[in-house]
């Protein structure tokens, strides 16, 4: 039989687990200031995560989806994007969001059960967290279509998890984006698990990057714990997309170092030793080591960074806790630009029967 098509999936790593370059680094990685910026954000994410989990455990936050372990992926993606691009996240990509201007307070307000957390002061066109798995991906294709219709050199970036790749919506989005050559990048965060289901039970595909082949678009794998690598691969994909070269799938290989959410208990299902092994590949240490090798980091700066982050986080927690519960009217006021008359009556009823303020969580 005749070969009519062949495909290769490539994997890239720039920094190994010790922070040693495994190949020539891109320009941005040679600028210590730039690497430091990324490292600072990764550290902020890590420390914020611990705080948020603690808030949940002590009854001051709702169910929360931690990001520990994903910092390189999230920050690398954020750093590669332009401000005028549009992000369609899932629910744990705080690193990207913070880089783009979402605030710690907004994140807390959101997971505190309040829609106002999605009204980002910063990236006004970014989408909020998206709970229905995979549904953000066709939306990102639509955002990209708007850029194409208007001839704007902007990109949409959609996240999706390894589990999420099993949903048809993801495939439909890749396929439509490929057919219409849309400026969108799909970032598949392969963190090994979809709640309790490991990747091997989710698909027979040996890589998730190869999902792209079904849509006729490029797919590439990168070490998702290597912030330099993630940023480099993303920059390439984004540049191509902006030039009319169409979509890309970028699979970042990382690991969920936490429970799925604070409502989950991963010890029920994860094989012994896996978590410990994964900690040896986590993203912060290698970035720090690399910074140190540039002579741009030391313990004192680390201490200063940590207390700086702690202060930011404390301020955010305070702002969050000082946020009064929203008015009952809110659930009516934002539904329509021109609300139907009948809703006014329901709004009155709702006011009358609102749960006493001060309750709610």
């Amino acid at each position: 039989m005749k070969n009519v098509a062949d495909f290769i999936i490539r994997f890239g790593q720039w920094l190994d687990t010790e922070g040693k370059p495994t190949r020539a680094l891109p320009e941005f990685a040679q600028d210590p200031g730039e690497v430091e910026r990324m490292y600072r954000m990764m550290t902020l994410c890590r420390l914020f995560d611990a705080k948020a989990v603690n808030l949940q455990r002590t009854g001051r936050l709702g169910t929360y989806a931690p990001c520990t372990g994903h910092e390189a992926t999230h920050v690398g993606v954020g750093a590669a994007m332009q401000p005028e691009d549009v992000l369609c996240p899932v629910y744990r990509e705080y690193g990207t969001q913070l880089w783009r201007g979402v605030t710690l307070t907004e994140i807390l307000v959101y997971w505190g059960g309040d829609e106002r957390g999605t009204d980002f002061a910063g990236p006004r066109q970014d989408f909020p967290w998206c709970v229905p798995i995979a549904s953000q991906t066709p939306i990102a294709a639509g955002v990209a279509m708007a850029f194409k219709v208007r001839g704007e050199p902007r990109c949409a970036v959609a996240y999706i998890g390894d589990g999420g790749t099993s949903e048809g919506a993801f495939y439909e989005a890749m396929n439509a984006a490929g057919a219409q050559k849309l400026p969108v990048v799909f970032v598949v965060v392969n963190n090994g698990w979809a709640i309790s289901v490991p990747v091997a039970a989710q698909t027979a595909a040996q890589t998730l990057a190869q999902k792209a082949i079904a849509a006729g678009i490029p797919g590439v794998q990168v070490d998702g714990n290597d912030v330099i690598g993630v940023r480099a691969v993303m920059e390439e994909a984004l540049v191509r997309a902006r030039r009319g070269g169409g979509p890309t799938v970028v699979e970042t290989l990382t690991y969920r170092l936490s429970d799925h959410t604070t409502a989950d208990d991963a010890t029920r299902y994860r094989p012994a030793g896996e978590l410990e092994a994964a900690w040896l590949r986590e993203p912060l240490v290698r970035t720090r080591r690399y910074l140190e090798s540039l002579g741009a980091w030391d313990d004192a700066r680390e201490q200063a960074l940590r207390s700086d982050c702690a202060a930011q986080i404390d301020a955010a927690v305070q702002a969050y806790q000082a946020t009064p519960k929203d008015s009952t009217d809110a659930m009516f006021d934002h539904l329509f630009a021109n609300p139907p008359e009948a809703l006014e009556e329901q709004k009155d009823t709702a006011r009358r029967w609102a749960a006493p303020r001060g309750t709610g969580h």
Partner: protein
Amino acid sequence: MAKVTLVEAVNMALAWEMANDPDVVLLGEDIGRNGGVFRATVGLQERFGPLRVQDSTLAEGAIAGMAVGMASQGLKPVAEIQFMGFLYPALDQIGNHMARMRNRTRGRLTMPIVMRMPHGGGIHAPEHHSESLETLLCHHAGLRVLCPSSPARAYGLLLAAIRDPDPVMFLEPTRLYRMAKQEVLDDGLALPLDRAFRLREGEDVTVVTWGAMTHDVMRAAEQLSLEKIGCDVIDLASLSPIDHDTVLDSVARTGRLVIVHEAARHCGVGAEVAATVAERGLHDLLAPVRRITGYDTVMPYFKLEHDYIPSVARIVDGIRETART
């Protein structure tokens, strides 16, 4: 002024709005070169180009999801779902995103989207091509749901739907697409949203209906007028929200209410009309409410479809019974 069919009126409204608003973009299966399987978009791709009249990939979920993304950027997507039975794959995007995005982002991201789709049976179509699923849409807060019953109302309501800054589901009765022509002025004037239309005045029975059934109800009313039974016929047109005041006003005069729809009875939109009258107009009622609807069975393949769709005879009988109670 041209005499046009309902589907031509849809085409006219789309063309008007596309010419006047560069943000209006159409998408859907076979809507470009082919002009849509019902020809609703015929000529528009030639006129406005393939970026404004897009042949989508065969994926209703992607169509709806892309409409969400496009709308968030200020475009005004008008998406076509080829038949209402193929709406299901789009429901996740409609229910979980389109209907909610303005609310959950507190007004930051808005959804000026129209989803057009054929509605109902009676045209001898294949299986799954004759569904009346308006309830599924109406139950979702954050959406408006319209169903025009004449070329003029199709024209005016579609313009209103496209101009509305929130998502509107626009149900086009297949049975009416080519049924009758009507003079429609192509003046770009929209009809008001959220309003029912009183199509006929009568003193004895209020008859509420929408879509293709409107024509059967009007024929029934005609017949009943020979028996001196006067029907106050209301075309609901807006199925969410419902213009309950118009219904209640009428019931206050007639004391009797018959609701006619093609969709299955159980949890059909007729139930909402009846329930509201039982709440707000109970003391006006001189006789039990009556619903004349499709049965709680699957819309049959076409050999039996007219056993399912309420016939004029069945409507006449039902109204007469109610009038005499």
